[in-house]
């Protein structure tokens, strides 16, 4: 009877745990194992190759270029999205007449899928017929090849990702803002704090937990950005938007080079573990 009672809680947890093991633990092991095998050219069989795949990708300029693009992309897109999301959530948290309508409009992109977004923005950014270039042209600015120039393509991807990302993360921050009791902010005001002081000393610290969550989720989501690349630039021009998950996917499924693909995934896993570990450390730091 006592044993049964001790087992029951774990039964509630069991389905979730099985899913976590099957979809997290086993594939991690499978990926790392796969990364040490190559398909032999002579016999066509899978043979153990130690670090051969890693050697191959570490000597491959395409891999390094892809990693570099991903790092640059992440360093721009994450701070940008979080700062804008914070601003947007504060904007729509105000009590202004008609704010409800604006709030609904801003949150519209959240419900739109990334591939519809990619289709729309591909039209909007078209060099000849796109709306953005139409506006630029009317302002007397030259038409820009947004998705076809090495200098602009990554920025276009950043904008497409942020069109959804900013309102999405602002939803979470908005929820955090609404959790701050108004008397706290009023008290600060009575004590003579100006708007900036009460923002940095009260609002931000009280949002730390939500911001940490948004930081983790946003970093990972952007690290794994895939659909907009496939649907707009396909990594080009000249690999300037060849983000790491897209490169991995292409190696594995298009070129059938599973060893290299698994080695890249293992590298990505290490990176994600480090980032998530660091960010969770921040999350824990405040308890």
């Amino acid at each position, binding site marked *: 009877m006592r044993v049964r009672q001790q087992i029951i*809680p774990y039964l*509630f*947890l069991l*389905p979730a*745990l099985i*899913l*976590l093991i099957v*979809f*997290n633990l*086993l*594939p991690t092991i*499978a*990926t790392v194992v796969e990364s040490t095998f190559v398909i032999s050219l002579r016999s066509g069989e899978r043979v153990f190759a130690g670090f051969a795949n890693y050697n191959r990708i570490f000597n491959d300029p395409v891999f390094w270029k892809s990693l570099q693009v991903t790092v640059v992309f992440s360093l721009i897109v994450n701070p940008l999205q979080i700062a804008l999301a914070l601003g947007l959530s504060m*904007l729509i948290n*105000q009590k*202004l007449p008609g704010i409800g309508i*604006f*709030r*609904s*409009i*801003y*949150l*519209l992109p*959240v*419900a*739109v*899928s*990334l*591939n*519809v977004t990619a*289709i*729309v923005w591909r*039209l909007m950014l*078209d060099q000849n*017929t796109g*709306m953005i270039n139409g506006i630029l042209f009317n302002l007397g600015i030259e038409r820009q090849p947004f998705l076809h120039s090495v200098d602009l393509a990554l920025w276009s991807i950043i904008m497409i990702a942020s069109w959804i990302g900013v*309102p999405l993360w602002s*939803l979470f921050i*908005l*929820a*955090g803002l609404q959790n701050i009791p108004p008397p706290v902010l009023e008290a600060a005001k009575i004590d003579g704090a100006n*708007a900036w002081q*009460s923002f940095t000393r009260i609002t931000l610290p009280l949002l730390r*937990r*939500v911001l940490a969550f948004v930081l*983790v989720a946003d970093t990972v989501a952007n690290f*794994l950005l*895939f659909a907009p690349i496939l*649907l707009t630039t396909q990594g080009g021009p000249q690999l300037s938007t060849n983000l790491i*998950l897209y490169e991995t*996917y292409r190696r594995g499924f298009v070129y059938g080079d599973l060893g290299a*693909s698994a080695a890249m*995934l293992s590298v*990505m896993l290490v990176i*994600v573990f480090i980032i*998530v570990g660091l960010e*969770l450390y921040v*999350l*824990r730091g405040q*308890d």
Partner: protein
Amino acid sequence: MGRLNIFGSGRSQSTLPNYIILILLALFAALPILLLVSNSLKSTSEIASSPFAVPRDFLWSNYGEAFDKGNYAVTIRNSAILTISTIAGSLTVAGLAAYALSRLKLKGSNVLSFYFLVGIGVPAQLFIIPLFFMWKQLGLVNTHVGLIIIYTALQSPFATYLLRSYMLSIPEEFVDAAKIDGASDWQVFRHIIAPLTGPGFLTAGLVIGLFTWNEFLFAVTFLPEKEFKPVATSLYAFQGRFSRDWGLTNAGSVIMMAPVLILFLALQRRFIEGLTQGGLKA
């Protein structure tokens, strides 16, 4: 003189600059969607010649044609099956797990909670290639069940996390009273915790539904067969086949977007409330 007023709640400054920013942002958010809808009522040649004018003769026939050519009768059904099953599966799995983590005396509950956080942080996208070969061996590629299992696994950690925060905020007295009356853990979950967590389930369900309806990477990989494709990936195939017909592509996009957009708008307020009450407590 009015300056941007988002930092405080003072009413002294003019609100005009606020409204200017609000309107500019609204244009940025809404224009692509308006453009999509407007272009869905044009012919391809009209889109090319005047891409951002109001449609000349409102080509409603685009919708019928897109619906037929894009095989929407089948794909919408497929998407509905995937979405509804994933919501049901994830909420069940996550609800039970959240109950165990928040309410039951569990050895190592902190470690396990932490592992669920890691599960959110290390999503299955990273494992798509080993998963694909695993699923192929199990005969689960090109089956809805196979993808539903993946989606459920993908969504459960976040849902568990959200629901756990929710359940932690339910007062202990409710549970104690029931236990004194002799209720089992299952009865407490079924009759007290689950009903009181209703708004949390709604919020989590909406997040899961949005994700599943719009998901692309797994759908395109695990359901290559035409008869199983959901709207998200059939739209992509359709876009390739009729790439020159932008009118149809746009109409097809609107058909895909409309149901979730309307649902999300209708439930938006409750959705934010759900996130707020959940409070995302670690």
